[in-house]
């Protein structure tokens, strides 16, 4: 079970590094806790929704800021509000903080400041997306591994009857690492 421990440790290290760096906060942990057999991919689904939403809003804001006739700060403020809401729902702390900073500039109708904030926001968003995608890959990998092991163990008729106790141990380890157990039929 040594390498499963290693995998678990890697997962914990990586996700705690996300917390340490302030990329995600407690709300993200709460979201992770919402995953179970009925919604095994909850966090991934919410995250992809968030990415779509965020990209759309950032694009809109970029277009709005480039308007030569006059920047529509009201639209920008609406976009920021939306983004702040969704980033706090998902627990993306740094994105949310970037939004807060952005809002003060848009409130002051400062175009230069807004452009800078938009850049900062894009940067934070890319960072978050990268990190979360890596996290998902690790969790998916561990789940696939689990599935393979179960298939191997349960499908092996020539071996002695495989103690299910071990399979449950593995399940517990994966759950403890923050993953969830897919149903294998």
């Amino acid at each position, binding site marked *: 079970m040594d*390498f499963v421990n290693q995998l678990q440790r890697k997962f914990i290290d990586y996700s705690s590094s996300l917390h340490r760096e302030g990329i995600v906060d407690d709300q993200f942990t709460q979201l992770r806790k919402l995953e179970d057999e009925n919604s095994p991919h909850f966090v991934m689904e919410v995250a992809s929704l968030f990415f779509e939403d965020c990209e759309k809003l950032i694009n809109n804001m970029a277009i709005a800021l480039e308007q030569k006739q006059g920047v529509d700060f009201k639209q920008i403020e609406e976009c920021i509000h939306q983004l702040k809401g969704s980033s706090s729902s998902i627990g993306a702390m740094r994105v949310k903080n970037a939004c807060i900073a952005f809002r003060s500039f848009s409130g002051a109708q400062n175009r230069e400041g807004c452009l800078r904030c938009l850049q900062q926001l894009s940067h934070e968003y890319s960072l978050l997306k990268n990190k979360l995608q890596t996290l998902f890959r690790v969790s998916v990998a561990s789940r696939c591994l689990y599935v393979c092991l179960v298939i191997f163990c349960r499908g092996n008729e020539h071996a002695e009857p495989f*103690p299910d106790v071990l399979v449950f141990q593995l399940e517990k380890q994966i759950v403890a690492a923050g993953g969830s157990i897919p149903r294998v039929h």
Partner: protein
Amino acid sequence: YLGGAFDVESLVENLLGQLAGNQAILVNVYDVTNSSDHLIMYGHQNQDGDLALLHESKLDFGDPFRKHTMICRYHQKAPTSWTALTTAFLFFVICLLVGYILYGAAIHIVKVEDDFHEMQELKVRAEAADVAKSQFLATVSHEIRTPMNGILGMLALLLDTDLSSTQRDYAQTAQVCGKALITLINEVLDRAKIEAGKLEMETVPFDLRSILDDVLSLFSEKSRNKGVELAVFVSDKVPEMVMGDPGRFRQIITNLVGNSVKFTERGHIFVKVHLAENLKPMAEAKAETFLNGGSDEGVLVSSAHQFKTLSGYEAADERNSWDSFKYLVADEESQYNALINMPLAGETSQNVTLMVSVEDTGIGIPLIAQDRVFMPFMQADSSTSRNYGGTGIGLSITKCLVELMGGHISFVSRPQVGSTFSFTAAFGRCKKASFSDTKKSNTEDLPSSFQGLKAIVVDGKPVRAAVTRYHLKRLGMLVEVGSSVKMAASACGKNGSSCGTKNQPDIILVEKDSWLSGEDGGLSLGMLDRKQNGHVFKLPKMILLATNITNAELEKAKAAGFSDTTIMKPVRASMVAACLQQVLGIGKKRQAGKDMLNGSLVLRSLLYGKKILVVDDNMVNRRVAAGALKKFGAAVECADSGKAALKLLQIPHYFDACFMDIQMPEMDGFEATRRIRKMESQANEQINGGSIDEESARKGKWHVPILAMTADVIHATYDECLKCGMDGYVSKPFEEENLYQAVAKFFKAKPMSEL
């Protein structure tokens, strides 16, 4: 026309001879008045001479009726001029030669250019080949890794089943081989990355001491089995958090300590970390000791073979022996105390350079192999791999990593005595702001319940005692060191009698070796204390420190009054804390705040089976809110605007509650709520004013509880919410306590059995 007595012919001949040099010139003068008949006036008729070169010139004697010509010619044919020929020939030859040289040069240039182009092409191809090779290596290694991990996993599972001893042996061998292969592949990949220059160092704040603790715990079992003592010491001046790459630092330490563990059969492995600036005073101090001829402490040196190192065995580099170490510790102590009141001068600089040394008392490195040590794939001996394992790539990677950290690695090694590897590394200082943030989510939090406790450490070996002291200081304890049990006992007794319980130590930690060797003083401390004076005062607890302990020794210790728990080496602050908690009964404070499990159960009891409508224009928020509510057992439906909510809440509906976002485009939460209430009041009027139907009477008033979801709970205007007909508000994203309070107003808790 001259006639006369002159012999004109010989005169002319003479003159001509003078004029012509050596050549004889024949002159004929003809009268050419009659062009067909030339009358010869002068010269021999028969002599022709060299008719090739003829010079004819007219003569005018002044006679108008006659014409005369003179024909001159050489008497003999001119010989062929050899000079002219030779010169011409030579000139031609020279021209040929020059032409040839120029041609040769041009050809050479063309050739060189061609070669150059060819070389460039080859260079490009070679570089591409190199890159391809690295990529190939990386890809193949990566591909190998995946099934390899599968194999290891299977083997691990296999070993957990019931196997006969031969089967177990086979499986274990396979596992060892597999692990070795994985390690090799990882190292090769690392090298490939380093070569490709792709190795990047990250810069994040991390805690040095906890990384060292981790690495030590990795090797503690192996070293304990070998009987080798493992210890770590970090100087006080090293800041708690530094900026750098924790993973790579861990890799370096793991490699060095792993090597030491591999090659050491007895003695100790000692890891020391301190600031690089402190080395200078230490070197001077060392010279001093040698001059004075030995230290003047009361250190017990029982035999001439005892060295003042961690375990008593000699170490390769004297810098870690007690003589110089004590100066380091004392120096730092005094500086530290002095600097508490002064602003730290070092804080202004951006970087902090640390010096880490790993000392072991193993077999050392043979002198011939010492200069090859950092070369990849080089091992000291061809049999090293067979006897000790490993591939020889670790140190070269370590060297690269150290250099990437802006440091330098070196070592001192004496065969059969031991080796000491030292390296420096530059880290950034942690700024205060990030410091406080990261401190919150530290993976290993040392309990603070031991602050201020007094302890005495009894250990005959001063270096080891200093290490134990360092770990205890991390827990905030006040530590004194005694070199023998007797000294500690006398210290206790003295304090006890004179100052009462104020200076009484709370615990005494005794190193097993010191206790066993000082057998006469092995009478329990407790007995000694009681004998001193009649006062009854609290006996300090006694704990044994040991690298390994047999059952017999443990029994003896218990009989002598030591507590049941022994602190196993290598000493780690967290282990010590756990031990002390057990012995002293100081428990960890319970986490403040609700336990998650209880909270969610309560909410589950409230929300189970309820139909809830979530209204928010943002898809992410909807999903998250729905997910959270579903976790508590509610049946959730979503709407993305006020209008959609209105449609869904048309009377009659089956919703038990509605969570409504306030800020939405088109129709905001307040407006939507107002309209819903209007709808409801209309429906209620109909019910009350209309038929007295039993069913509708039972239904009563239509009033669906509507809660506002707002991100800004503090400034949410409760009045505004109430004015438009809402029943309360909850935070967005949900906070359990807040949610519970809001929801408890309308829902009754279902009994647990129904959940």
